[in-house]
């Protein structure tokens, strides 16, 4: 006899599996099939080519991708973890403000963001030249570019994942563990290195996963900063440019396989040891720090870091304030005005992209919130066969390069299918919200998983025992308790969806052109200033949304993941 619990698990699994299969697996399958085709016929040629005749370039690219991704993980961790430590372990005036600023890099629009970096740190950039002029050097002291450029941009834009997971993990660590280590005679550094840091593992693993996958699939940074440096995501692009779509598909498949292997490796790594704190909630005592020198050093470091983190935003602001022609060959901008904003606002439709982005992102976020909640609940609280598979499926939209996701969507939905209710979705308004939805499922599921794992099963049982049916329990008990965590995951998805470019450009229509397209088009017309001005609008929009969600829903960005 199937008991009541199994029945409910199956009922839950149905929508989850249907959506994952329909909107994640089904579109991706076309890429897989494509990778096994050569001139329209089934063959393994692409794979033999990948590992054979084109091996030199492909392996170099694969190796570079992995190498860059690993270094990006490392660098992001190096920035994110200490920052999180400083902001969560030391109390000083303005701490709250700074800890909100810490996630601003995520808000930087991708393309103009990278451009801002070049204006800031490139050979002709503000910082190297300012130093050069200040010290009368004959040459600029440093500049970014090539691998170092990619890495710096990656570290800058991806460290917030580490910052967020570390912050929430730090707050969950039982302080008595650290005290025990002090009591046994170890120094501050030792305690951090031997006790605190290892205990952060689950959070670090989650962050590493996200960063690794994003770096593997990252396009703008390697493309803009090191166009000739071979990485797999660029190889895919060039294969496409060369018209070799099958090879592009093959390379995409290989790239996702690498990302998924990393996922499996990380899961294995985490499961090797136990990081669950034996008991929660006791030991709330926190030892008093009284080393004023250390504290002020830490605080100074933290504030300095914040300033550096905000420099690209500042550059963007400057760019948006420099009228055309006033900063072309000149090292420093020559004039400031609101000209760019005026030009932008002259267009009566200027707010359309903003409104479109907002509406579509909201739709996607509502969807991803509900679906993420249910999926994560099913993954964490129910046991069934094929759980691992489902988990991998959830991460696929994150493991594939965004362009590939976009092309998959076109291929899957430019003909009527059951999953599109017999309609053609391509060319309609709905395709973009759907794309955002799919792209950001992994973010919400990951962040919900973390909170759900902390929720005690007996709460649900208590509600059931009091006579509540499953859905009532879910609605009244589970959701309110895990809401803060899930909302911050959704917020992160929101922030990224607003700036999403690679899938947008393939899927947008006249009626739903989002902000990122507008920025890109300004850039294509060489209107750097207006692009930057629009970028500032995006930054402002996101800042407002973050402020509102913090004020009214108590969503703290640190709680994410």
């Amino acid at each position, binding site marked *: 006899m199937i008991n009541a619990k199994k029945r409910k698990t199956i009922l839950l699994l149905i929508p989850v599996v249907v959506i994952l299969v329909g909107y994640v697996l089904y579109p991706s399958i076309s890429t897989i099939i494509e990778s096994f085709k050569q001139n329209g016929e089934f063959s393994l040629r692409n794979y033999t080519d990948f590992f054979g005749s084109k091996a030199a370039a492909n392996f170099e690219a694969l190796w570079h991708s992995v190498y860059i991704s690993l270094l990006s993980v490392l660098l992001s961790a190096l920035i994110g973890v200490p920052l999180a430590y400083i902001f969560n372990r030391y109390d000083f005036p303005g701490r709250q403000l700074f800890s909100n600023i810490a996630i601003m890099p995520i808000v930087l629009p991708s393309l103009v963001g990278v451009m801002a970096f070049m204006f800031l740190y490139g050979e*002709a950039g503000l910082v190297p030249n300012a130093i050069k002029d200040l010290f009368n050097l004959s040459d600029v002291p440093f*500049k970014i570019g090539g691998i170092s450029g990619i890495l710096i941009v990656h570290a800058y834009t991806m460290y917030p994942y580490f910052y967020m997971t570390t912050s929430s993990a730090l707050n969950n660590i039982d302080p008595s563990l650290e005290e025990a280590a002090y009591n046994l005679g170890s120094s501050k550094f030792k305690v951090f290195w031997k006790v605190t840091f290892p205990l952060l593992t689950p959070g670090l693993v989650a962050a590493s996963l996200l960063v690794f996958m994003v770096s593997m699939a990252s396009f703008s940074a390697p493309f803009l900063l090191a*166009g000739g*440096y071979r990485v797999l995501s660029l190889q895919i692009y*060039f294969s496409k*440019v060369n018209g070799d779509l099958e090879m592009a598909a093959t390379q995409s498949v290989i790239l996702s396989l690498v990302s998924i292997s990393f996922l499996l490796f990380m899961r294995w790594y985490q499961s090797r040891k136990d990081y669950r704190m034996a008991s929660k909630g006791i030991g709330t005592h926190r030892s008093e720090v009284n080393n004023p020198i250390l504290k002020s050093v830490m605080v100074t470091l933290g504030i300095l870091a914040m300033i550096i983190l905000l420099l690209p935003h500042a550059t963007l602001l400057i760019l948006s304030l420099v009228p055309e022609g006033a900063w*072309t060959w000149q090292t420093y901008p020559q004039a400031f005005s609101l000209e760019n904003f005026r030009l932008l606002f002259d267009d009566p439709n200027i707010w359309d992209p903003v409104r479109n982005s907002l509406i579509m992102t909201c739709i996607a976020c509502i969807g991803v919130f509900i679906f993420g909640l249910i999926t994560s609940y099913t993954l964490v609280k129910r046991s069934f066969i094929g759980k691992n598979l489902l988990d991998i499926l959830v991460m696929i939209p994150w493991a594939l390069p965004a362009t590939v996701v976009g092309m998959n969507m076109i291929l899957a939905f*430019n003909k009527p299918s059951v999953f599109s209710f017999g309609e053609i979705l391509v060319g309609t308004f709905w395709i973009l919200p759907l794309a955002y939805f799919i792209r950001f499922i992994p973010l919400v599921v990951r962040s919900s998983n973390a909170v759900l794992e902390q929720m005690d099963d007996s709460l649900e049982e208590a509600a059931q025992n009091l006579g509540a049916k499953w859905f009532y329990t879910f609605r009244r008990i589970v959701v309110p308790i895990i809401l803060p965590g899930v909302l911050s995951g959704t917020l992160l998805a929101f922030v990224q969806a607003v700036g999403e470019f690679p899938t947008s450009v393939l899927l947008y229509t006249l009626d739903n052109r989002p902000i990122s397209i507008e920025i*890109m088009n300004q850039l294509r017309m*060489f209107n750097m200033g207006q692009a930057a001005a629009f970028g500032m609008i995006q930054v402002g929009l996101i800042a407002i949304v973050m402020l509102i969600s913090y004020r009214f829903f108590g969503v703290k960005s640190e709680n994410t993941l």
Partner: protein
Amino acid sequence: GGDEEASNGAENEGSGDGSNEDLEDKVVVYSPHGKDILSDFEKQFEQEYDVDMEFLDMGSQEILDRVRSEKNNPQADVWWGAPQVNFDQAKEEGLLAEYKPSYADALDEMYHDEDWMWSGTSITPEVILYNSKEISEEEAPKDWDDLLDPKWEDEIVIRYPLASGTMRTIYSSIIYRTYKDTEDPQEGYDWLQKLDENTKEYAANPEIMYNQVAKGVGSLSVWNMPDTVMLAEEKGYPFDYVIPESGTPVLTEGIAMIKDAQNPKAAEAFYEFVNTPEAAKLLAETYYRIPTRDDVEDLPDWITETDINPMDIDWALFQEKSEEWMEYWDNQIKNTEKDKSNEE
């Protein structure tokens, strides 16, 4: 296109043959030309015909991706603006429909597809671009071979050729200069090898290249003439150009009909509309585009006064060989270190 403009169509005076009753209600245009040009043409087109023009503005490569993905259910009717290499690729994949415009006679055969899968709307001669603040007109290199002079070491910034149709064409042309006689690309490779040695860095997109040249990170580049003129005149960049004496590749930017388009009639109207002599003149005057038609009068000075010596190019051969050549360049010649400056 907005609905507010559709109402303007009521007072349209009818044009050309005035047979716009059989036209569909709208036409969808994919184009990389930018909002300025597109809205300008939208207004004019909608005034003339009772058709709502809708445009999506994106890069040529993205258009190709999109058209390809939408093959089974095309959303676009017309693809306006892309270097001919993109069109050739699309043609090969069977994405385009044949259309022979009414002004076919005014087009040099160099400027249209042999099967009329696309036709040219403007031409872009490639030039040597230099920073006029760093280099005087006399100093500037006069021909392609001058670029190899060791004095330009680390002065050249080049848009990364693999990602750019323009640059691919220039590189292929250089190889083709000798290949057409020897049937062997080696001489061309050697030339590119030397260019690579002088190259300071490869820039990923045009904006970066402009910026690096303008700020003097490098002072030379190869680029197309219309953009160079536009940047110098409109945006205040310190750019000037030299047309290589020995001849330069001239790229054609064209327009094409999408196969199985939903609004073929309106598309034809649009196809015709953007290459009327008036339109071509407008494009030349306001947007720095050199027309393909030979019957356009009163062109601006910068077009009429320059003496372009078009390089003789076998596009079919390019289509066949360019992938191989670029792959060779990518694997054997390109110095990865120079991707973007030396690392610190």
